[in-house]
């Protein structure tokens, strides 16, 4: 079974950056739609990373 190393790396980065990211997002001067902006970026990156994959890697 194929282990996607980029995914593992991304997961580690997410965990490491989570507190910093959270502070950046939840400070009182940030716009409420920052979360949605970030969320949209994650969706786009996920779509991009899956678009060229083989249809069945099982």
């Amino acid at each position, binding site marked *: *079974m*194929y*282990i*996607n*190393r980029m*995914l*593992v790396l*991304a*997961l580690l980065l*997410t965990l490491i950056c*989570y*507190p910093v990211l*959270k502070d950046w*997002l*939840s*400070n*009182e001067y940030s716009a*409420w739609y920052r*979360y*949605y902006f970030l*969320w*949209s970026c*994650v*969706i*786009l990156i*996920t*779509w991009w990373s*899956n678009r060229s*994959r*083989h*249809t*069945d*890697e*099982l």
Partner: protein
Amino acid sequence: MSFSAAQVLLLVALFLAGLFAVATLADRGLISRRISHHPATYILSLGIFAGGMASNGVIELAHRYGYNFFVYYAGFSLLFVFSGLLLLPLLRLSRVYQLASLADLLTFRFRSARVGAAVTVAMAIALMPMLALQIQALGDSIQILSNGTLANGNGGVTHRSAALATCLVMTVFAMLFGARNISAQERNAGLVTAMAFASLVKLAAMLGLGLIAVFAVFGGLPEMQQWLENSAEAQALLVQHLPVENAHAFLLLFFAGGLCMPHVFHMLFAENTESRDLRGASWSVPLYLMLLSLPVLPLAWAGLRLELGDSGRLEYAGLLLGQYLDSPLASILAFLATLAAASAATVVATLALANMCVNHLILPSRLLNLSQDSDIYRHLRWLRRALIAVLIIGGYFSYLGLDGRQNLMGLAYLAFSGTLHFIPGLIATPYWPAANRSGFLAGLWSGLAVWFVAVLLPVTSGYTPELAQLLSAILPGSGNNAWAFASMLALSVNVTVFIVVSLLAPTSEEERVAAEVCSMDDLNRPVRQLLPMDNAGEFVDLLRPALGERTAQAEVQRALDELQFTGDEARPYALRRLRRRIEANLSGLLGPAVAHNIIERCIPIQASGNEDITMIERFLDTQVQFTGLAADLDSLRRRYRETLDTLPVGLCSMGADGEMLMWNRCMVDITGVTAADVLGSRVETLVEPWRKLLTEFRASESDTLLRAEINTGENNQRWVSLHKSLTAEGDTMLLVEDITDFERMEEELLHNERLASIGRLSAGVAHEIGNPVTAIACLAQNLEYAEDCEEIGTTAQDILRQTARVSRIVDSLVNFSHAGSQSENLELKPCNLADCVDEAIHLLSLDREAPPVQYENRCDREVVVLADSQLLLQVFVNLLGNARDACNSEGLVQVRSYESGERVLIDVEDNGHGIPTALQSQVFEPFFTTKDPGAGTGLGLALVYSIMDDLGGSVHLTSPLQTGPNPGTRFTLELGSASYGEVFAV
């Protein structure tokens, strides 16, 4: 604005009727398969994760923790964003081994029925708060929608009885559509489409509510933004900080809970078999959740601005907004969102839990005697339906028992923190082969015990045991924060015990094999097992005692169809695959524990051999991607495989038990038997003559057989040489070299040598005989005219006739001896083939004493060959003369030509008596003839052969051409084609 009981029940009935209609139409194919099986439908059906918590509880979460409400969506979204790490490996296992639930998966991984039972019981306990949450969301919504009138039993109806009625309708729906397909292999199109429909309704209703909040409460987006900037209270609400530990705990809860929840697991794996759909879900489920979350903040702000929180709980901000604005549309949208969310989650959760109960509690305890049941499928279906009803009613009583002491967020927290305890086992399945069942069970029960004491009891009953009091004194935080710590403590206990016990307790061999199968870096190497049957048909007899005649037949046939095998399949490899497939199919039907037990009992393995190379190769060839060292090794393996496959000699290997393990392309060319037909079968089942040849050579003591003659059909004689060696594992490697061309060339060389010798001899004999014969002829001629005696004259004429005959023979010998010697000086020119044949026919027609046969020259008039016209004429005169002599008075001799690339093939065919097969190898030998003594010299065909060789062509014989009294003969000449040049080109 309030609704009456009849109106509320009408709303419920309308929505659930919609669900029924969609499910029925999809099941009956009236909704196009393109829609019901579209990836978007599957993706939308995953929206069942967003139950009552998403439609209501999350607004309270936003109100209490501001931006932190995103963790609810983020946890589940991350599960999909990182689907390659956990979801795809689990989907692979679920698909291959037909595992439809978490209990199935963990039972398969730890090879223990006790694991399945433990998971089912624990899941039932953890799921009750989840079911209570859905029903409470419905009950409270009905109460608010009716403006409290139903709560007082107005007209004999209370909001609880309305909720019960809703539960009953949901039960009927789940029983009708959920338990329809009892095999995990079949996608339940009706259920999936209905759940996708519910998700769409939920999304549309939530977005509609968001728009009402923005435009009806604030007057538009800019106004809302302006209010937000001016409202200190709203600003403060947004940035309410959740301690980072709690944020992590919530994230983990919704990440793990999302995966472990039975309804999510069911939709993810049991109703989906395509990794393509899951890849689509990796970005589209987060997108769906993002859209669903859009109205949450506007609704929370609307509640804050209109102070809706004062008049009721903010979880139901949508309904309260409808009442405040006196807007039936807003109220109906809010209720529909709750109804769609709660009903979908309840139906699938109870359905999945019912399957787990049947497979892991009822069937293993042998409450149902499978072998005596005439229709197992029907019994299982009704059993599941009954359990669905029991579970929904159980959820309703949990709701009554909790009596509204907890809000939706609290109930969700309880359920998610309970299901969190399955995550260590789930992660260990693909990632930790050393984990074992003792560790898993010890960890699960330890963690659940802490959860029960520190979380469940205090939250549900208000009773806090001394141990929990001690824990709350030690642990930091209070309220929900304390729950988070208690949950993390329970999980820590679970993980620690799991690891320690797994490392200390022994792991059975069976468990070790299952661990390797489940592992991401699957090192499992299947072995060739000997099964107690000779063909696939015997599986039914073996399974009959356990499953009954009808079910055994149905399951064996299903497996045969899936593998595209027939009932008389006898290859050991195919039988092993069939056994695995039947076990997988039974696993989808009865659960892995019962299926494994039945297969082990009914179809025991008699003996195990070496590694199953065919299965391993097949598995490796289907792998699309390897990385690192594995990729390098696989590349090397493919290269060596290709080298062996393209060897110019035949290579086959067989195990010690005679099973064929390798059959390269050259073997296919030599034998005409494909690798697919041979691999995995025994050498004894090969077709003749290969079976006899390979079996005898394998058994012989000699390692080499230099020359073996084989007949693979009429007129198809071949020669092969064989070599063999034994590997350390006892496998036999056989090299088979086709030496037919070599043998034929050697035979031809010998023939040519014989011809040359005879030619030389003929020249000498002709020379020595020619002169005396000429002298005798002269003397006889003189004698004829010198003597008047009639008797002497007659004798002299006889002598002259005989000397003339001897002269003809001598001339033939001279021609024959000269034929080979002319090759170097021959000047080949373009000759018109048809003209040459015409001339030969004309010459033969002059012989009035010959039998009257019909000649047909069908040669293409345009065909020109490269030859010497006189020699070619001699060839045709010989062949046509022989053909004429072989025919009777109705004989027909045909000459045809056809071009093949740069060569011209000429058939000289007759319908005469033919040439016996035994004599065919001698017809080109000099002095060989089948004619009567004196009728032929036996040099004609030898001369033809020799001339054709000189012309750079060849001659072949085919006989008989047909059955019957006149089988006929065909001589095929092959010559190079030519042209007269461009000047003559038409």
